[in-house]
């Protein structure tokens, strides 16, 4: 199942995710207008773009929450739509919504999701994650009683419950306090060092630049820029970003 993607400069055996000619329209509005992208295992891609550029739509398609209007997403030679159920077991997502139940305790939340993902010993997995996000001492507190920062740390732990092969982050830094932001950054670095593939969408340049290995800019439903981070420096990227926004 090999298809020629227009910018397939790095199709090799370790390609993890292939997006080709992806389009999504609502009625006659086009949110995504032909996205092509290859991701290798262990890559950390950060996509920037203004509101309405189609960032969230792209992420939702990758998360199997939306179906593309046309085009395909392939994960390790499997079509995403056809094998959505298998794929979901290896997927994690952090969104600006916390995805946790207000009326369950911290531990119950994690245990529930761990069970849903078929994690063998859901309780020890939950405790292990609470350790990592510094919430162990709050384990029996209802999520509703947590401060906003703690809720955010809980939602990060929730997304990692199945040790996802692909982690999707939709504006994860929005409204995060310093502590939660540093927890998130540490967790991302940990995952990255363990060869997990990460796709983050944000308009926060500083946060995006600090941990990504690859940078992209999405404007008006098109990927207008895509580059390895090691090839450019941060200040140059800022200029490029604003130039792309201006052009769009």
């Amino acid at each position: 199942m090999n298809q020629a993607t227009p910018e397939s400069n790095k199709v090799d055996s370790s390609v993890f995710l292939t997006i080709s000619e992806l389009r999504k329209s609502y009625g006659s509005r086009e949110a995504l207008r032909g996205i092509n992208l290859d991701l290798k295992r262990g890559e950390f891609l950060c996509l920037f773009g203004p509101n309405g550029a189609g960032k969230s739509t792209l992420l939702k398609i990758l998360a199997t929450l939306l179906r593309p209007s046309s085009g395909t997403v392939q994960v390790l030679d499997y079509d995403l739509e056809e094998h959505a159920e298998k794929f979901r077991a290896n997927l994690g997502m952090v969104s600006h919504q916390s995805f946790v139940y207000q009326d369950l305790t911290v531990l119950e939340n994690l245990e529930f999701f761990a069970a849903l993902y078929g994690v063998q010993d859901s309780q020890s997995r939950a405790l292990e994650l609470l350790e990592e996000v510094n919430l162990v001492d709050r384990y029996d507190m209802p999520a509703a009683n947590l401060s906003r920062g703690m809720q955010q740390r809980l939602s990060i732990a929730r997304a990692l419950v199945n040790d996802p092969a692909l982690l999707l982050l939709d504006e994860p830094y929005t409204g995060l306090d310093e502590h939660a932001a540093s927890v998130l950054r540490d967790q991302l670095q940990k995952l990255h060092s363990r060869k997990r593939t990460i796709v983050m969408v944000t308009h926060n340049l500083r946060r995006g630049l600090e941990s990504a290995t690859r940078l992209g800019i999405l404007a008006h439903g098109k990927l207008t820029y895509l580059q390895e981070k090691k090839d450019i420096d941060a200040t140059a990227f800022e200029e490029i970003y604003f130039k792309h926004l201006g052009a769009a």
Partner: protein
Amino acid sequence: MTLTNRSSLFAGAAALLMPVAIGMIFFYAPLEKTMGSVQKIFYFHLPLAFSAFLSFFVAFVAGIMYLRTRRQVWDARLAASVEIGVVFTTLVLITGSLWGKPIWNTYWTWDPRLTTSLILWFIYASCLILRSAVEEEGKRATYCAVMAIVGFVDVPIVFFSARLWRSIHPVVIRSDSVGLESSMLITLLVSMLAMLAFWIGLYKFRVSLQLQEAAANELLNPKD
């Protein structure tokens, strides 16, 4: 646009047939012996009921097609047919009541057909309320498609359950014979034809209006 041309074709046919049908109802069809002139409402009542049911069937098919293809045109078809179906069912209920008052001595009775029509009216009117309550196009289309399918599946159950009440509704058209004199039958057929042409014209008109409305919305509120 071909769509508008074809819709005006059917509208024109309806404009021709409708007066003919009315003329035949009053001057051609004989006066019914026991019921008198009230019976003439039947020539509109039955075609209206048939077209209303047709609307709900079209909505059902459009609902399935929308969920399968996600194409906006199916949503427009669904919306148009549900709207027309609700209006026609309202007319069925009104014409039926007008007829029922002198004949049954009551505007309303819990007869299976009346009950079924009323419940259908509620089901599809609720679908219209739902349409007005959801702004996101994709969501609105999906929800209405689901409701149109569920509503149509409910129809036979509603009719079956309504048989709990004893029927006093006249059964004019049976599978084996038609309980009508031939001039009455011809009048009925012409009225039916007129109503169907009217239905199709109205339907085509509403579908194209729905699509134009969506396009206009798109121009007024671009997503970016």
